C-alpha cells in the first residue's frame, strides 16, 4: 500500500497517449481501456435489451392487444434475444472483466495481441450495429426468435440478412477474444505462476476460451449457410430444396449449447474470486473447481440435443443427449458445494459483492434445477417451448451470469474506477431487484407447467393471473436496477477514493494501485504461493 500515493506512473485513466479525447479511448490498445469501452457499449446494449424485455412483459400483462401489435412483439423478442445473448451475456464477463483483469491477475502487462483485442471490440460494435440496422431497413424487422430456425427464416419477409450477418460478426469478435486470452494465459503468466497457482477467474476464462474458439466457428458457418440459402437459393436446410430443417437445429445448438457455458463459466470464475475474499479464507477444493470448469467445457460440447427433444430425433440420440445432460450437472454441483464449503469457518465480511454472490448461488441453483427438469425426456416433452424454459434460462442466464456480472461490478469497481460506491444504496437496489426478479421469473415456472407456450403474443384467459404477477415483478425489478446503476454512476463523482485493496483480496490485482497504472506492474511479480493465501 505504500506505493499508492507516490507512484510515478499515471493511472490508465489519466494517461496521455498519442491521441486526444475520445480517440485516446477508441484507438487505445491498452487492455484496461478496451475493457471500459466494452463496459459502456455493453451497458448500452443491455439497457436496450432490458427495455424491450420490460415492454414485452407489459404487453403480456393482459390477453389480447395491450400496447403493441403481434408483429412488434415478435420483432421485440427476436431483438431482445439476439442482443441479450450475442451482445450481452456471451461477451459479458470475458470482454469486460476478463480484459481488465486477466493480464493483471496473471501478472502480465497486457494481453498477447493488444491490437487484435481492439479489433475485436470494433467487430463487436459493428455486429450490434448490423443487428440494429436490420430493424429499420428492408421489409420489416427480423421475427424469427434468436434461434433463426429453418425453414421459417427463409420464409419470413423480415430483414434477416443484416441480423444474421451481425450475429456472424459478433461470433468473430468472440473468437478473437477467446484466442487472445488463450495465448495470453499460455505465454504470459508471471514467473513462478504454474497452472495450479493461477487464480480461478483466469482458469474459467481459459476453459471459456477453448469453447469460444472451437464452438463459435460452427455457428459462423451455419449463419453463412442461411445467408447463402436466402440469397443464392443453395439448398441446405429448406425441405423444398431437399434439405433437412433438423440439421439446422443440430448445427445451431452444436454452438449454442456450448455457448451457454461460455456465459456461465466466467460468471462462476467471478464468484470463485468473490467468495474467498469476503470469507477471508482460501477457497475450498481449488483443484476440484479447476477440474470441474474443464469438465463443464468439455462435456458441454456434446449435449446440444436437449434442445431438440420433441423434434423427432432417433431414440438413440435422445438417450445419449439426455444422459449427458444429466452428467454435465455434476461439475456444477461440485462447484456449488465447494463454494458453500468455503464459507464454513470463514470470517465473513458482509459487503455488497458477497450479497450478490449469495444471490447468485440461490438463483443459479433454481436455474440449474429447472434445467434438470428440462433435461429429463418425459418432462421436457411437456415443458419444451413453454414459459418454463423461459423461466429456466432467465434464472440461469440473468440470474447466474447477470448476478455474477453485477457482483463483479461491485467487487472490482474500486479497482477499475479508483472510487468506492455507496454501500447502502447498492444493497437497497439489490434487495428491490431480487424481489422483482423472483416474482417475475418464479411465476413463469408455474405458467410453463400449466402449458403456456413461449413466443406467444396473446394467450388463453387461464394464464392471466400468473402473467399479472410476473409483469409486476418486471416493473419492480426495473426500479431495483435503476437504483443500482444510478448509484454506481453517481459514485464516479462522489465516491471516496479507493485504497489499493479495499476488501482484503489476495490475488495480484489487489497489489497494485487503484486505478491501475498504464503498465500494471512496475516490476513483474514472481509468484511463489497459491492464489488465495490468507495464512
Amino acid at each position, binding site marked *: 500500500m505504500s506505493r499508492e500515493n507516490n507512484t510515478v506512473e499515471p493511472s490508465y485513466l489519466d494517461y496521455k497517449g498519442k491521441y486526444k479525447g475520445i480517440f485516446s479511448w477508441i484507438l487505445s490498445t491498452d487492455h484496461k481501456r478496451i475493457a471500459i469501452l466494452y463496459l459502456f457499449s455493453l451497458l448500452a446494449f443491455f439497457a436496450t435489451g432490458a427495455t424491450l424485455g420490460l415492454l414485452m412483459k407489459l404487453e403480456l400483462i393482459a390477453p389480447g392487444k395491450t400496447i403493441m401489435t403481434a408483429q412488434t412483439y415478435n420483432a421485440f423478442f427476436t431483438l431482445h434475444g439476439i442482443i441479450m445473448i450475442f451482445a450481452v451475456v456471451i461477451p459479458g464477463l470475458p470482454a469486460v472483466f476478463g480484459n481488465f483483469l486477466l493480464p493483471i491477475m496473471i501478472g502480465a502487462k497486457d494481453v498477447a495481441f493488444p491490437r487484435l483485442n481492439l479489433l475485436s471490440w470494433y467487430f463487436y460494435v459493428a455486429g450490434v450495429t448490423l443487428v440494429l440496422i436490420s430493424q429499420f431497413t428492408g421489409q420489416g424487422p427480423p421475427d*424469427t426468435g434468436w434461434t433463426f*430456425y429453418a*425453414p421459417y427464416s427463409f420464409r419470413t*419477409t423480415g430483414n434477416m440478412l443484416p441480423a444474421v450477418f451481425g450475429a456472424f460478426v459478433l461470433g468473430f469478435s468472440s473468437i478473437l477474444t477467446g484466442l487472445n486470452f488463450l495465448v495470453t494465459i499460455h505465454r504470459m503468466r508471471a514467473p513462478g505462476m504454474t497452472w495450479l497457482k493461477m487464480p480461478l477467474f483466469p482458469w474459467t476464462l481459459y476453459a471459456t476460451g477453448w469453447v469460444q474458439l472451437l464452438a463459435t466457428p460452427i455457428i459462423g458457418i451455419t449463419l453463412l449457410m442461411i445467408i447463402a440459402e436466402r440469397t443464392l437459393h443453395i439448398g441446405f436446410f429448406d425441405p*423444398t430444396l431437399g434439405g*433437412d*430443417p*433438423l440439421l439446422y437445429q443440430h448445427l445451431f445448438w452444436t454452438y449454442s449449447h456450448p455457448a451457454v457455458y461460455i456465459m456461465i463459466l466466467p460468471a462462476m470464475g467471478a464468484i470463485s474470486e468473490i467468495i474467498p475474499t469476503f*470469507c*477471508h*479464507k*482460501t477457497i475450498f477444493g481449488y483443484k*476440484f473447481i479447476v477440474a470441474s470448469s474443464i469438465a463443464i467445457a468439455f462435456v458441454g460440447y456434446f449435449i446440444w440435443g436437449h434442445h431438440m427433444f*420433441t*423434434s*423427432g430425433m432417433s*431414440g438413440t440420440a435422445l438417450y445419449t443427449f*439426455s444422459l449427458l445432460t*444429466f452428467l454435465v*450437472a455434476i461439475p456444477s454441483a*461440485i462447484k*456449488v458445494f*465447494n463454494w*458453500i*464449503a468455503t*464459507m*464454513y*469457518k*470463514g*470470517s*465473513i465480511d*458482509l459487503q455488497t459483492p458477497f450479497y450478490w454472490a*449469495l444471490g447468485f*448461488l*440461490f438463483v443459479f*441453483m*433454481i436455474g440449474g*434445477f429447472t434445467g*434438470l427438469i428440462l*433435461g*429429463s*425426456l*418425459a*418432462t*421436457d*416433452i*411437456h415443458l*419444451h*417451448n413453454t414459459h418454463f424454459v423461459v423461466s429456466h434460462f432467465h434464472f440461469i442466464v440473468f440470474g447466474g451470469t447477470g448476478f455474477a456480472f453485477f457482483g463483479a461490478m461491485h467487487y472490482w469497481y474500486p479497482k477499475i474506477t479508483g472510487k468506492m460506491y455507496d454501500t447502502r444504496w447498492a444493497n437497497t437496489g439489490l434487495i428491490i431487484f431480487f424481489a422483482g426478479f423472483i416474482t417475475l421469473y418464479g411465476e413463469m415456472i408455474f405458467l410453463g*407447467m*400449466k*402449458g403456456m*407456450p*413461449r413466443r406467444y*403474443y*396473446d394467450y*388463453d384467459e*387461464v394464464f392471466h393471473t400468473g402473467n399479472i404477477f410476473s409483469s409486476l415483478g418486471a416493473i419492480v425489478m426495473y426500479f431495483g436496477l435503476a437504483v443500482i446503476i444510478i448509484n454506481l454512476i453517481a459514485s464516479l463523482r462522489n465516491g471516496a477514493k479507493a485504497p489499493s485493496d479495499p476488501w482484503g483480496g489476495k490475488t495480484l490485482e489487489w497489489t497494485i494501485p487503484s486505478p491501475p497504472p498504464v503498465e500494471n506492474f512496475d516490476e513483474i511479480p514472481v509468484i511463489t504461493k497459491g492464489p488465495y493465501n*490468507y*495464512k
Partner: protein
Amino acid sequence: MYSTTGIEASNYVSTYNTAFYFIAGVSLLLLIGLTITMLYFVFRYNRKKNPVATQIEGNTALEITWTVIPVFLALFMFHLGWAGWKPTAKPPKDAMNITVVARMWSFLFIYENGKQSPDLIVPLNTPVKINLVSMDVIHSLFIPDFRIKSDIIPGRQKFMWFLPQLEGKYKIFCAEYCGLQHSYMHSTVDVMTQEKFKKWYAEAAKPVAITGTGPGAAGEAIMRSQGCFACHTPDGTKLIGPSYLNLWGSQQVILRDGKEITITVDPDYIKRSVLEPNADITKGFPANLMQSYRSTITDDDIAKIIEYLKTLNDK
C-alpha cells in the same frame, strides 16, 4: 390445463408426474437445504462472531461424496425421464389413424374416411395415432393436459400417439414459433364417449359443419376450417394476404415469372391462387407464404369458395 385433480387425462400424465415430482422434490430439498446451510454459515461465521478464519484447503473424501451422490441421483432422474419417454415411440397396433395438416396458422385434422375437422375429435379410451404433416414451416402440436407435444416438420414423416382417458375438451396449442399469428394457432381436442364419436364419425357426408345460411355459407365454412382467415379478411383489412373484399371480378396486378401483368379475378385465377399460389404473386405481397391447398381442397370446394367471394362484393 394443469390438472391437479389426480384424474389423468392421458396415459402420459402419470409418467410425467413421476419424473417431475421426483426431480422437483429432490431439487427442492437440495435448494432448501443448501440455502439454509449457506445462510447459517453467513450468520455463524460472520466477521463479528468469527474474526479469524480457519484455513481449510479441501477434503478429498468430502469431494468424492458430493460427486458420487449427485451422480446416482442424476442417473435415476435420467432413468425416470427415459422410462416416461419410451412409450411415446411405440403406438399400439390398433390405434386410430388421424392425419393433421398444419400450416400457417391452423390445424386441420383428416380422418381415414376423408372427414376433415379443424378440431380434433377422438373417442375415449382408444389409442389415437396422429400423422404429422406440415405444409410450410415447423409447427408443434401441443396438448398440455395430455403432457404431450411433437414438432411437425415439413418434408418429414412423423407421428405422435396418446390414449385419451377422460372425457372433456382440452386446448391444443402450436408450440413452435411459426410467424405472425403463432399465438393464434390453436385448436381443441374433444374427447367423447365411443358412441357419441361413432355418431359424429358417421356424418361423413358433410365434411364441415355449416353454421350460417345464405349463398356463401358453405364456402365460408370451408374457408374457416381450412384457416384462410388467418391471412385474409372479408372486410378490407390487410392482414398477411390481400383482403377478399371486392376481390371477385376486380383487376389485379400480379407477378408471373417475374413479370408484372394485369389480370381479372375469375374462377381460373382463384383456382390457381389456391392450388398454385406461388405461380402468380399479387403485387405488394410476399411469395412463398401461402402454400398449395391441393391436398385438402377439391374443385367442388373452390366453386363454393367462389360463391362466397361473390357475396363480398359491393357491401
